[in-house]
């Protein structure tokens, strides 16, 4: 175990996989000489050379198209889209091409493509640099979507993503960039689609993914001080989504709260509530709650942004409402 920063875990996963498999290459904007706009890729170009680690022009469509065509023909591309907001430019490539290529070819082709991208919520980056589209991509047959909340998961999930024979979108949280976690040395591979019980508990189930997990955990800390035991589930993967773990937890607690960074409609929360409710509405002994930002783009002003995203106090308030209703 070594205490490792989130970004360094990403860096290590890419480096170890590139070392292991010569068919992997990595392209993106400023990932090479500059070491990444936020430093996550430093050293990779020096280590693997400019053929395997390449800076691209600002051409998001062509970057993902390149990855898709290359993945069909014997290489394993990693393509970085700097902010997830910019992925909108490449969605035809990701959704109409990469995700469907195996299907459209009747199963003849595989697309072992990894797209790495970052969500910058909570960092004063404003309306066009804060968005996450995890549930859009989670709706697309043919894609896998993972979003680690911590360094250990980042390393383990990215290694699995790179080894997958299907396209995987690997989402990073800039808000977690400098957090550290104990990461096992060497081989850490985490299967895609398995949630993690980040904290066991018995009074309420709190579900989150990516950057929202930290909020859920801090909320759970504060709840513990109030004598309430929250079970925090870190989904880790949006597609596939681990229904079993969520349902088992709610079966135990009878109360469900979802915390998310994206807008409410059609988000993680709606899916999780729907999964539980379709399994058995009677599992829910109290109305489930989704904590999501107001229905607007992310405001730039730091004070506004702070109150925009749900915080630990919102978690506490919501759980208190639920447990109040239970009494």
């Amino acid at each position, binding site marked *: 175990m070594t205490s490792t920063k989130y970004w360094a875990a990403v860096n290590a996963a890419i480096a170890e996989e590139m070392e292991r498999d010569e*068919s992997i*290459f990595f392209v993106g904007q400023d990932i090479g000489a500059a070491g990444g706009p936020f430093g996550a890729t430093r050293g990779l170009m020096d280590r693997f050379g400019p*053929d395997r680690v*390449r800076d*691209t*022009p600002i*051409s998001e*469509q*062509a970057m*993902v*198209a*390149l*990855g*898709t*065509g*290359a*993945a*069909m*023909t*014997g*290489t394993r*591309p990693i393509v970085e889209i700097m902010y997830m907001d910019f992925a909108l430019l490449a969605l*035809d*490539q990701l959704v*109409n*091409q990469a995700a469907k*290529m*195996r*299907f*459209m*070819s*009747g*199963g*003849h*082709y*595989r697309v072992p493509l990894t797209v790495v991208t970052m969500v910058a919520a909570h960092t004063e980056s404003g309306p066009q640099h804060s968005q996450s589209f995890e549930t859009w991509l989670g709706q697309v*047959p*043919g894609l896998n979507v993972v979003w680690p909340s911590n360094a250990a998961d980042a390393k383990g999930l990215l290694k699995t993503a790179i080894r*997958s*024979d*299907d396209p995987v979108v690997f989402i990073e949280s800039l808000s977690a960039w400098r957090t550290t976690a104990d990461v096992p040395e060497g081989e850490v591979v985490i*299967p*895609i*689609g*398995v949630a993690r019980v980040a904290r066991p508990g018995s009074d309420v189930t709190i579900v989150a993914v990516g950057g929202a997990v930290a909020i859920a955990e801090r909320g759970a800390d504060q709840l513990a001080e109030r004598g309430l035991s929250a079970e925090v589930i870190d989904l880790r*993967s949006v*597609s*596939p*989504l*681990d*229904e*079993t773990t969520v349902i088992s937890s709610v079966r135990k607690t009878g109360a469900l709260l979802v915390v998310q960074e994206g807008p409410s409609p059609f988000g993680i929360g709606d*899916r999780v509530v729907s*999964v539980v409710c379709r399994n058995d509405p009677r599992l829910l002994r109290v109305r489930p709650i989704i904590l999501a930002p107001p229905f607007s783009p992310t405001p730039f002003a730091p004070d506004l942004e702070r109150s925009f995203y749900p915080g630990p106090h919102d978690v506490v308030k919501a759980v208190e409402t639920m447990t109040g209703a239970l009494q």
Partner: protein
Amino acid sequence: MAELDFDRRTRMLNAMVLIRVFEERMQALFAENQLAGFLHLSIGQEATAVGVCEALETTDYIVTTHRGHGHIIAKGGNVDAMVAELFARETGSCRGVGGSMHLTDPEAGVLCANAIVGASIGLATGAAFSSQFTGSGGVAVAFFGDGAANQGIFHESLNLAALWSLPVVFICENNMYAEMSRQSSQSLVSDIALRSIAYGMPGVTVDGNDVDAVLAVTQSAVSRAREGDGPTLIECKTYRTSGHFEGDQQTYKPAVEVATWSARDPIASFVARYPDLDLARANAVASRRVEGAIEFARESQPATTADLAWLTYADARREGAST
């Protein structure tokens, strides 16, 4: 232009005729409601398909469009599987789940046909990257139309391909129309090859109905690419004498234009240039081939059993997780 040897000429004639016979038969079957979905034919454009693919090895890649039957046949694609796909059979190129716009043939170096205008350009650029990266010596060809040349992916891909000297040849079939819209209503630039200047790439316009000429320019572009000197943009001026899709009434085509281009039919011109070619024989061989494929398709199972989950993911997805 060096005169082609007899074997090569015969092969090229056979290929053009096979495309023509294939498409005319599919046209008839579609009119009889025997085929589902869309059918975009390339009747009149056979010289481009054959001229380009004659310059390629089997291991080279092509990526094509909604109008791709000709390119795939010219590249040596499996005609049985193609017809079976149009008939939505289990034995089709895509097991019946793709249809005419998604034909594929990995053994013949065909990545895919594609129903998104412009997509072939980016995908071929990616395949060329693989060839360069692995040092395979392979070349990738993107077929696309005049309409596709106004898509953003054209610009981004050509710039990237030139920058990285990728072994790719961009074949723009300028057939003067995008659906029902004339090329002149889509851009002020009528010679699309000119656009190569914007990327520091050679560009050449060629008579797309002259299979010799198409072969010659493609050969130089392919050698350039194979030698590591990067991509070329080739514009083939041609004309589809059929509609945009079957069912298109073609009211937008001036009669004189149709007449002019019909007189420039690529197969008839080729045979006129080389009178020792045997068109009747080529037709007979092609008919047998296509009728055989139709029989194969008809005898095949309909695509009703496809395992959609397996087709969607290569890796098994977790149980208990929502797909």
